[in-house]
């Protein structure tokens, strides 16, 4: 009371509402400032996102292009099949080292036929231009079809990583001066060969479907086997985490009595969602590999570990979507005589399904990009060169996974692998975007709100 009367007594005149006083101005200014902070925060976030995506795309997009040499190779019977029997068993004795000179001769002959001036006089100098995989490519083709021996066949062989880098402006003449693998004369030759279209760039399917390669031939390395590894892991995650997660949530949400014990379980599930993923890796190492003696580096183990990691995400999403189904649906079902189980499976679950699927897909996307737990079960540091023979070997044979493959490439010595690591990130991101897009579409189209 005294305050009020004091205010009136100090001679304050009654104000109009249309005129802002000092305090209102201050409050309005504070609000404006806050909006500015918010916008600055969003702008900063967007800026970093653009920089991140920009650098990924600019660094990685070149990995999807690859340089090839197109040369006619004379498959010399003198070297490949001395006996002349055309018997594949005998011809297997000629190793890839026997095929390499053929490729060198062929490239040299093609250069001379095209009339390109070069300082090189020896076919042996050509080996810096093409990939070490070329000899194996020839050998496979000849062994598959021995009648080719004696003929001249045009092969499309991979250019070496340095030549590839030169055409992609990754290798410059300055850096070549210091590089022992290739010299400037080779680059002059490549310029000439490009003009004669002996050297062409084309889309690199092998980068998406191929297997990993050793460090001496980065041009051959691809993501395919690691993708299969990730695929089998995701199958395990989907096959285990979805039924277990949904069953657990339905029981907890619809059937379980509310008591201290179920409260404890609920708290623990939430805690589990916050456990750092590396912890699941250690658990996987101790339980699945050392105790159950599952093979190291196998997608089944990776899948099991990622299942543990994804489970809480799926349970929490499922419970949230079950809770959002209004009780009137359940009451109506029970009211017309349905059993508890019928009400859940016929009415509640279908309505909750979009939410459950969204949660599952987001959980899978998270698991797909996870590397830390894979470190401990041997999926990182593994050279993924073998395609799985069948479905069982897909689960049990050692393999890598997409993020592990990217990590593996990023740490290799040859700078050409750096580009491939970025390219791998693009592939992984495409998968993640696709999965998130599916989740959003499901939510938009099928989710009902009450």
């Amino acid at each position, binding site marked *: 009371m005294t305050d009020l009367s004091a205010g009136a007594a100090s001679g304050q005149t009654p104000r109009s509402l249309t005129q802002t006083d000092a305090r209102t101005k201050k409050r309005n200014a504070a609000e404006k400032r806050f909006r500015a902070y918010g916008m600055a925060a969003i702008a900063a976030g967007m800026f970093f996102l653009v920089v991140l995506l920009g650098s990924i795309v600019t660094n990685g997009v070149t990995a999807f292009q690859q340089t090839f040499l197109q040369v006619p190779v004379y498959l010399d019977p003198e070297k490949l099949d001395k006996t002349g029997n055309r018997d594949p068993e005998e011809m297997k004795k000629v190793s890839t080292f026997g095929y390499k000179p053929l490729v060198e001769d062929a490239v040299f002959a093609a250069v001379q036929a095209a009339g390109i001036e070069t300082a090189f006089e020896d076919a042996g100098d050509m080996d810096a231009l093409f990939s070490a995989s070329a000899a194996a490519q020839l050998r496979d083709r000849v062994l598959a079809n021995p009648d080719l021996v004696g003929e001249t066949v045009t092969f499309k062989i991979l250019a070496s990583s340095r030549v590839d880098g030169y055409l992609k402006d990754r290798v410059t003449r300055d850096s070549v001066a210091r590089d022992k693998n290739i010299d400037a004369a080779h680059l002059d030759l490549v310029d000439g060969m490009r003009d004669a279209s002996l050297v062409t760039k084309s889309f690199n399917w092998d980068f998406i479907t191929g297997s990993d390669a050793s460090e001496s031939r980065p041009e051959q390395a691809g993501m395919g086997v690691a993708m299969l590894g990730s695929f089998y892991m995701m199958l395990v995650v989907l096959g*285990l985490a979805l039924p277990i997660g949904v069953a657990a949530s339905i029981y907890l949400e619809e059937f379980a009595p509310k008591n201290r014990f179920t409260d404890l379980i609920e708290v623990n599930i939430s805690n589990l969602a916050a456990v750092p993923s590396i912890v699941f890796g250690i658990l996987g190492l101790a339980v699945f590999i050392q105790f159950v003696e599952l093979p190291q580096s196998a997608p089944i183990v990776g899948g099991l570990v990622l299942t543990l990691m994804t489970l809480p995400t799926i349970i929490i999403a499922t419970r949230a979507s079950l809770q959002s189904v209004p009780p009137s649906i359940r009451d109506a079902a029970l009211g017309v005589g349905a059993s508890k189980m019928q009400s859940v499976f016929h009415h509640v679950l279908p309505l909750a399904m979009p939410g459950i699927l969204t949660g599952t897909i987001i959980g899978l996307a998270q698991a797909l990009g996870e590397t830390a737990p894979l470190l401990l079960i041997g999926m990182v540091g*593994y*050279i993924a*060169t073998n395609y799985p023979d069948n479905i069982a070997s897909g689960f049990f044979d050692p393999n890598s996974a997409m993020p592990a493959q990217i990590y593996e490439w990023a740490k290799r010595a040859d700078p050409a692998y750096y580009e491939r690591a970025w390219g791998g990130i693009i592939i992984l991101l495409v998968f993640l975007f696709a999965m998130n897009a599916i989740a959003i579409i499901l939510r938009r189209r099928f989710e009902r709100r009450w």
Partner: protein
Amino acid sequence: MTKTLTVSALALAVASPAFAQSRDNVQVAGSSTVLPYASIVAEAFGENFDFPTPVVESGGSSAGLKRFCEGVGENTIDIANASRAIRPAEIEACAANGVDEIIEVRIGYDGIVFASQIDGPDFTAFEPADWFRALAAEMPVDGEMVTNPNTTWADANADLPAVEIAAFIPGTKHGTREVFEEKVLLQGCEDTGAMAAMMKMGMSEDDAEDACMAVRTDGRSVDIDGDYTETLARIDSNPEGVGVFGLAFYENNTDTLKVATMGGVAPSTETISSGEYPVSRPLFFYIKKAHLGVIPGLKDFAQFFVADEIAGPGGPLADYGLVPDPELAETQAKIENEETMNAGS
């Protein structure tokens, strides 16, 4: 946690019956230094033989030998790669698990080089003594051990650039560190007379050696626990840094790194195989003899690895940076005859 247990039990039920298949590929694990060589050989092996491509994993020499020594059988690895010789303790551990017959194969040599940014300060010639003076934790001055007073390379040797000491050396879990300590720090300690001075002060020889190899911990020397790529990244961001690399890694990055001579000798495959370049080490792999004849292709793989066309001069391993072993023929004979190491050696 109840959920995790359910899953584990389920996994057990799902997995156990399917895991009764026999293995038909060679499995290799171990040193990250040997990994690139082993994967080059594995790739060529897969191309040239009817056997599947061997499975190669890294993990480090010690980790590889530990897995190697876990026992005999299909679920253990056949070959361990190592960038150092197997230790007596490891041989014992192996024998305790039934792995008593091991074939030691030396594939060649690897040089350890000292390199800095190509456009950085003029680090062109080092002596072991420079590294000891630059990196020692303590050194004897007038009969007393004092903390290393040197802060710039010029303090260690007036001929070196006067820039702050920033050295990136392999961490203690690497086989390379051992070679670095013995062939550079200890050598430098002896060359500078510090070793003799320490023993004069009443230290035992072992204590003096330990003191020689102790590296300063004030941040001027950084242990790199990752691989050479990490060292390279540190050098890239620190123009005045000097890093320790494998010769093969350096040879694949000659466009960004400049190498210094050690003791007046430039590192190259020639100077290392002749023994002139002082800092090199042999690289090995170890074969479990009990697996020969059981795992298809194991012996062929081992023979292929040390064949002249692979590990010899001009072969793909030498191209990548391996220094060929002049005694390769003996190694080949060793595998042919399946000669094991003497127990306890």
